[in-house]
Every structure is written in C-alpha cells, then in structure tokens.
C-alpha cells in the first residue's frame, strides 16, 4: 500500500504532509528493495543501478534540467550518481558483473543501490535479509543501518525476525492480523508492551504468563506476595520476562526447581510454585544448583498485569 500496488479500503496516506493516497506508484518517489532482489539478470550491475535514471520519464526530465543547469551531459550526470551510490553501498568494483556472478550479499547491496540512486523520499525494504545466511544477515543488517544513517532517508523495513527489527530500527510497529498493536522504540516496545500479544511476541525467552489474584491491593502469585497495587480484587494475568526473574538468596517468590535448560551460555530453570504454575527464570551460577528450592527476586519494573482482554493495566 505504501508503494501504491494495493488499494486502500479506508484511510489516507501522507508523505511529508502531502496526500498521496491516490497518487500512482511511479509518482511517489519510492525506492524499493525486494525480498528476491529482482535484479535484471540480463543487465550488468551498472546497468541495473542506472535503470531508474535512464528509463523513467519523470526522472529523465529532472536529469535533463539538472544537466542543463550544471552545463554537463546527462550521461555524465548519470555516471556521477551511479558512482556515488555504488560507493555508499560499497560495490564500486563490481559494476561490470552480471547479477548471477554476485553473491547474495552483493546482490542485496546492488538492489539497495538501485533503490537509492533515484534519491527517493522513502525507502521500502521487503524482508531483504531473509535469503541470506545468519552471519551475512547480521553483517548486511549493519550495513543497511549505516547506509540509512548516512543518507537519512525514511526507511520502512518489513521483517518477521524480531531480532532484526529490534537491532536495526529506531521505531518499531507491531501489527497483529492487520491491526496495529503498538508503536515505539525497540526499548519501549520490549520493556513496556501495551498488551499481552506484544509482550508475548517479543523476547527470545517466552514471557511467563501466570495467573495471579489481587486481594485488598496485594498481588499474590500462589501464596507469594509480589507487590501491591490499586487495582480492584480479582484474578489477573501477569507477565514477567524470565531474564527479569533472578535466582537469589532473598526474594518474594518461592518455588521448587523442576527443570534446567541450557541455552548457549545462559541456563534457565523452571520452578514450580505452590499453586501449580511453572515459572521460567534465569539461574544464578554462583548459587548452588543442586538445591531443590529456589528463591526468586523480581527486577523492578518487570511485572506486568493484563486484564481479561489482554490489555496492560499496571506495571511495576
């Protein structure tokens, strides 16, 4: 919809205050990087990058004007732009190759160069890293971030990989089944989710979702009092991230250890509480790991209370 391929059923779209809802895709000045790169296989890298400049009617007109103002030939102007953008993505030595002579990461950079060369007002990246292997993904991710910082272009990055999203974005929008759930910085969305879905969606360890009861302003997890609140009495769903639950010598939760799971470098444990619920926490390597009973301490700000609709109502 941003690119203008699909129509809106409702609402409007504004770029920098201009209403572009009904504007044709080619007039919206959009640079797009596809998941499969969509590099023209019969053209060299250089021809791929200059394709928008050479073949777009509106851009050709702009180029001609610019060339006239600077008293140079259009061809030279195009060469300059291609060179500059190749330098930004660091593929200047590969200009004479064809796409099938490039590696995945290189193809990706060519696709980015092609999107950037027409100086678009908005850069769209459609799962650009899904086709790369893990190491290359991290590397290219950093490169994309640097490119975006250097050029300052508004960039919309679509991904299903939350680690990618958390690392590359200045702002994240979480969408569930087409409905916007929350918008914020990665920190905000992760630490202060506005509903249960967002809380459960993010985080490499699944957030603990437990049932707690509030009586007279005190919150009980089983028989453990984990805090006080002004919420009315009743049963609530609370969420606490495992990394915010520390095994310690003093704490508000008491449970018995039932499982230990090792994830590369971090060991988590599962404790059984006295009301039968299981809570996952991060084990403290300095404490005796053979103990059957564990005492858990909650980090401040880590307990989230959700109502029956999943909306967060309190957090401390």
């Amino acid at each position: 919809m941003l690119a203008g391929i699909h129509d809106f059923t409702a609402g409007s779209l504004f770029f920098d205050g201009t209403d572009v809802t009904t504007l044709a895709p080619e007039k919206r000045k959009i640079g797009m990087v596809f998941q499969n790169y969509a590099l023209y296989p019969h053209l060299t890298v250089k021809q791929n990058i200059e394709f928008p400049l050479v073949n777009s009617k509106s851009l050709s007109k702009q180029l001609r004007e610019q060339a006239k103002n600077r008293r140079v030939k259009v061809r030279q102007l195009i060469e300059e732009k291609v060179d500059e953008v190749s330098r930004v993505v660091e593929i200047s030595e590969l200009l004479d190759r064809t796409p099938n002579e490039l590696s995945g990461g290189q193809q990706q950079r060519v696709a980015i160069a092609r999107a950037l060369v027409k100086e678009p007002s908005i850069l769209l990246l459609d799962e650009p890293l899904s086709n790369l292997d893990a190491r290359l993904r991290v590397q290219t991710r950093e490169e994309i971030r640097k490119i975006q910082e250097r050029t300052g272009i508004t960039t919309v990055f679509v991904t299903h990989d939350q680690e990618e999203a958390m690392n590359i974005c200045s702002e994240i929008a979480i969408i569930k089944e087409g409905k916007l759930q929350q918008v914020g910085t990665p920190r905000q969305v992760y630490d202060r989710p506005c509903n249960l879905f967002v809380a459960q969606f993010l985080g490499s360890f699944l957030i603990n979702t437990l049932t707690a009861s509030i009586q007279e302003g005190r919150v009980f997890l089983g028989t453990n009092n984990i805090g006080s609140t002004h919420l009315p009495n009743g049963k609530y769903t609370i969420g606490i991230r495992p990394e915010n639950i520390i095994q310690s010598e003093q704490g508000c939760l008491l449970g018995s250890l039932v499982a230990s799971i090792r994830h590369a470098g971090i060991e988590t444990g599962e404790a059984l509480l006295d009301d039968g619920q299981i809570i996952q926490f991060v084990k403290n390597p300095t404490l005796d790991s053979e103990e059957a009973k564990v005492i858990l301490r909650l980090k401040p700000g880590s307990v989230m209370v959700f109502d029956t609709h999943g909306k967060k109502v309190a957090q401390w």
Partner: protein
Amino acid sequence: MVKRRDYHAYIYLLPALFLMGVFVLYPVMNTILTSFKEGYRFLTGSFLLFSFENYRMILLDKIFYRAIINTSFIAFVCVPFSMLSALVTALLLNSIKRLKGFFMTLFYLPQVTNVIAAGMVFALIFNNHFGLINMLLVKVGINPVAWISGVGIAASTELYMASYLRCLFVLFVYMMWNGLSLKVILFLGGLQNIREDYYLAARLDGTSKWKIFRKITVPLLSPTTFYVFITSVITAFKAYSQVVALFTTTYGPAGDNSKMMITVVGYIIDALGSYLSAGAVSVASAAAVLLMISIMFLTAVQFKILNRWVHYK
C-alpha cells in the same frame, strides 16, 4: 577410462542407438550416396555411374526453382508474421485474468486437427462460388474474388501472376492459422517464466509500458523467441501437406499445369512418384540432400547471427 556408471548407460542406450542407426543414420548415408548414382534403378539397385547428373537435372528444372520460391515464402514471410502475431497474442493472453484456459485451448486446437482436413476446409472457405469469404465480401458490397482459380492463366503471364498471388494469400492465411497455435503456447510459457518482480521493480521506477516491453520482456523472452524461430523455419522448409491440402496434388488451381504452389518436399515426393523408372529415386535423393544442406546452413547462420541477442540467465 570407462567408469562403471558409464557402462550401464551405454548398454541402456544400445537399443535406441540401434534404432537410430537403422532408421536414421543408414537412410541418410544411403540417400547421400544414391544422390550421386546416375540412372539409378530402385528395384535392382543398379546404376550407371557416380556423377553429379542428378544435381544438374534438378538445378536446370524450372519447377525446382518454383519450389524454392514457395518454400522461401513460407519460411521467410509466413513465419515472421505468425511469430509476431503469436507474440502479441501471448502477451494479451498473459494479461487477462479469466477465461485464460479457454483461450489457450482454443489457440491450441489447430495443433490437434488433421492437416489435410483443415486444409480442405480452408479451401472451401475460400471457394469462389460458395466460400465463406466471398459470401462475406458480397454482403459488404465488394465483388467476390476468385481465390483459387486457374482461368486463363495458361495464356497470359499477367493472369498467371494474379492467380499466383491470390493463391499465396490463401496459403498465407492458412499458415498463419496453423502456425499461431504452437507458437502462442510456447511464447506464453516463456512469458510466464519471467518473474513478476521484474515488472514490479520497473513499474515503481516509472518505466513506461513500451520501455518495459523492450528492455525487460523482450530480452528475458529471447531464449524462447530464438527456439521458436529456429524450429519454425525448419518446419517451414519441410512444408508439404499444407500445400497439398489447399491445392490438391497438382499443387495449383484447376487449369494450372505448372505446379504453381509446389514446395521442395513436394518436388521430392513427385520425383518419387515414378520411383520405378530409372533415375527417379536418385533425383529425389539429390533434392533431399539439397534440402538437408540448406536447412543445416540456414540453422547455422541463424545461430551465429542471432546468438548475441539471446540472453540466457
């Protein structure tokens, strides 16, 4: 060193190789040999001597040149036109959403119809008295055209040329109808192999539809186009049944005894008609060899010249 795996492959290939040898290789060699035997008698296999006599006879025969002209017409006029129409049709078919299957079946029908039957129907459509075309022309107010007619052509060259051109037109229409079918399917397949992404990327860059066609569709379709061109020309050189279907075995309208519409294969078949007489089969062999050499030469030329325009991925 023949690896163990290769052994098996060769053994499995033996039956096919044997058949190829008996039914392809041996006949070809034999034909080439026979084409040099002067006065060859088919029944006894005897001949006078090895010479170029058969070739000389062919190259002095006016009818052979008529055959060459007609075959060239089919190969170099009908084929390009039908390729262009097929490409346009395939592009249109590729862009419609519904009834795609219906139209594809429709366009493929000529491939599954019998050539003779189809040709006879076409001859009827173009019939001078009760043909469909003439009836439509009369309705619009134009005088009916004597499409396949040999009236008075023996006498005047003018009338002969006019009749010849009319017959060429009928042949052209038939070849277009026949040639469209397979080419449309092949072009459609080639078009559908071009990923949507390319068009989308070009559209977002503001490329006009014509430029997209020229710079993306045509290059990415070039392997298919190349294949269609080569095979169509080869098929055109072998044209025979279409001509016979339209113009009967005299290769012309009634009243013509010059074999007006004969093709090279028709020439070969006619030479074989009197296969019992001396020299008949050897003349046919010579004509066949000439045909083979022309096709090979032409195909080689096509490969050399057109190869740089074909982009393989």
